[in-house]
């Protein structure tokens, strides 16, 4: 399903996103489970704050990683995250 690009995104209620020093990566926590995130997934989810939209996130990432063409990858990931119920459209 396609995600609106200009609407604010938020983490779904039961999910918590945090940095795990022992594992040296970001994780997504939810009841009875744990998703170990890749570096790029961590960079994307870090920017989900209840205000930023998919477009804002792409822009922020392109500033942080200049020269990379990230747009489609970021949107693909956000769509997967939305389908899996990790994030919602505010």
């Amino acid at each position, binding site marked *: 399903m396609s995600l609106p690009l200009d609407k604010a995104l938020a983490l779904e*209620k039961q999910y*918590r996103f*945090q940095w795990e020093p*022992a594992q040296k990566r970001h994780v997504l926590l*939810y*009841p009875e*489970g*744990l998703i170990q995130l890749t570096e790029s997934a961590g960079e994307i989810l870090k920017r989900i704050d209840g205000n930023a939209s998919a477009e804002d996130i792409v822009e922020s990432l392109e500033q942080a990683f200049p020269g990379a063409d990230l747009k489609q990858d970021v949107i693909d990931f956000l769509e997967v995250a939305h389908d899996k119920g990790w994030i919602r459209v505010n």
Partner: protein
Amino acid sequence: MTKAGSGSTDAVSGPLWVNAEITYKCPLHCVFCYNPLDYTSTYDSELSTDEWVKALREARALGAVQLGISGGEPLVRKDAEVIVAEATKMGYYVNLITSGVGLTEERIAAFKEGGLAQIQLSFQDSTKELNDFLSSTRTFELKLKVARLIKQYDYPMVLNVVLHRLNIDHIEQILEMAEAMEADHVELANSQYYSWAMKNREYLMPSREQIQNARVVTERFRERLGNKMKLYFVMPDYYADRPKACMKGWGSLFLNIAPDGLALPCHEARMLPGLEFPNVRDHDVAWIWNESSAFNAYRGDSWMQEPCRSCDEKDKDFGGCRCQAFMLTGDATNADPVCSKSPHHSLITEQVELAQQSRTSAEEVRPLLFYRDDKTSRTLTME
């Protein structure tokens, strides 16, 4: 540190999941309880609040991040809120596993304040009579009240119902009740035959037909409710021909800490002979996890015998459950007899055959059951 570590522990990663059994005290008397038969032996040696906080901090430093607070009934301890709040501050995602007895509005508010992430409520059955019968105390009304409180405090409603021969035919009422309570997740888990459930095994194991009916009903609800109420149906492992891959193997991601501080790679491990389980009072959790001989005993696969040793599925199920292998075959290094490749598999199929015979009604079985209560525990310990 008196014991020498059992040698090579090349780059074991830390536990991810801690289960803190903060007390074995419990007002209920479930016939399928997985607490050890001699649970009363821990009454005088429970860890203090500070000792819990210290052990949880050490496990957190190793990378543990999911924390279950269970028991017994964890609410029996007046410091459950403190332990939850401290653990949340450390960065744990904390789940309270409770029968609901003792969960007042005051306490749930305190848990919320302390950052508790989830409450998992267990239900024995949906019909008041059988619910009371199975836990032999009158708790059903109370649980409905607690379910409303959980919703009111904006927690997802996670219900856990242990299924067995005496209640599985009530699946329809159980699911109707869950729907009425607006449950978000319902786990319908068949009882596993350890401890008290093992004592009561022949009265608790459902027949194939009972399971089939229950699955059909569950599927009907699933189709109608979809994501609104997620349903998980867990089969009794006796009906499978491959064992469950318990917690991804021994000492791999799960750490259980018993009320008296004993550190165990699984709930049931206390029963295994020849292993000296370390106590969080005497040892740092890092040493326990990485160095102690008990946590290394069945790590990896070098301990395996045939048929597991040369089996190409050993990375999938790790040979099954050590406790079940010991309990049924007398040797914890055997394959879990649930596996059809096990030479002891008939120990499972014989029980399954027994479960197909028609049997007396629940009321007639009642006096034959072992109820999990202090008196029975002490009697069984003396045996």
